[in-house]
């Protein structure tokens, strides 16, 4: 499941980069920093990315998840730090 989640995240990031045109997103990896210090997404791009991700994850796993809740978005150890932390966070939500 983890690999599938990671692939979804990376595919969406690549699609997003067609509009963002950010070199750091040409070849995203699990270590790619998303939001926060040295992150490649600003708040507008992150919210938009998460909204899309929620929809795709819900379709692929047939389960509604909410990533954009205020708790996650203001957590000190934000799940949106990098691709890996986001993958783990989504897996945790799906396992619940």
């Amino acid at each position, binding site marked *: 499941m983890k690999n599938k989640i990671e692939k979804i995240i990376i595919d969406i990031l690549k699609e997003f980069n067609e*509009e963002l045109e950010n070199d750091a997103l040409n070849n995203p990896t699990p270590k790619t920093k998303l939001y926060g210090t040295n992150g490649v997404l*600003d*708040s*507008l*791009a992150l*919210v*938009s990315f998460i*909204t899309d991700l929620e929809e795709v994850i819900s379709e692929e796993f047939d389960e509604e998840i909410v990533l*954009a809740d*205020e708790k996650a978005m203001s957590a000190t150890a934000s799940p949106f730090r990098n691709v890996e932390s986001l993958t783990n966070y989504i897996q945790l939500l799906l396992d619940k």
Partner: protein
Amino acid sequence: MNNLKLKDYLLLTNDENKELIKLRNSDEIRQVSLTQNIITLDEHLLWLNKLKNDKTKQYFAVIYNDNVLGGVNVFDIDLQVKWGVFFSNKTPLMIKSIIPICFMDYIFNTLRCEKLYAEIKKLNINAISYNKNLGFEVVQDKNIVTMELNKSRYLKAKDGMILKRIVRKMSLYNLKMEIANEK
């Protein structure tokens, strides 16, 4: 309930003014502001008095469920119209995303602005990227970066991949704009 409003500085209560000034004077905001001096409440109130008769500036506090989380402004309305925005670090990201769209709509549709500018510290990469996602383009790249946006470019950005999804989420918020009587 997700009550979100843009409230004209001229309509703020005493408590809201205090909250606003506390936020404006915080390190997190001053670090990225073009003016970094501490503003006292008395200075702020004096400035509000001048603002009452100034047709070239409009300032709004961002208030979410009765908490002041930031501000947006439009100024030099008679010249090269500029906008500014600041948010507390605690502001939910969805709000940071919805507010500029609401405010751009106001600037281009209600104020009928043709071209809008933003001036941002070069080191504030996040703010530059944020403005780019709204459709702004860099027109001068110095220590202070000047960015420009016209209505057609904004509408194109609003219909683009990034903003379109945020626009869809706007209906989840009870969004109001409180504007002081015409100056």
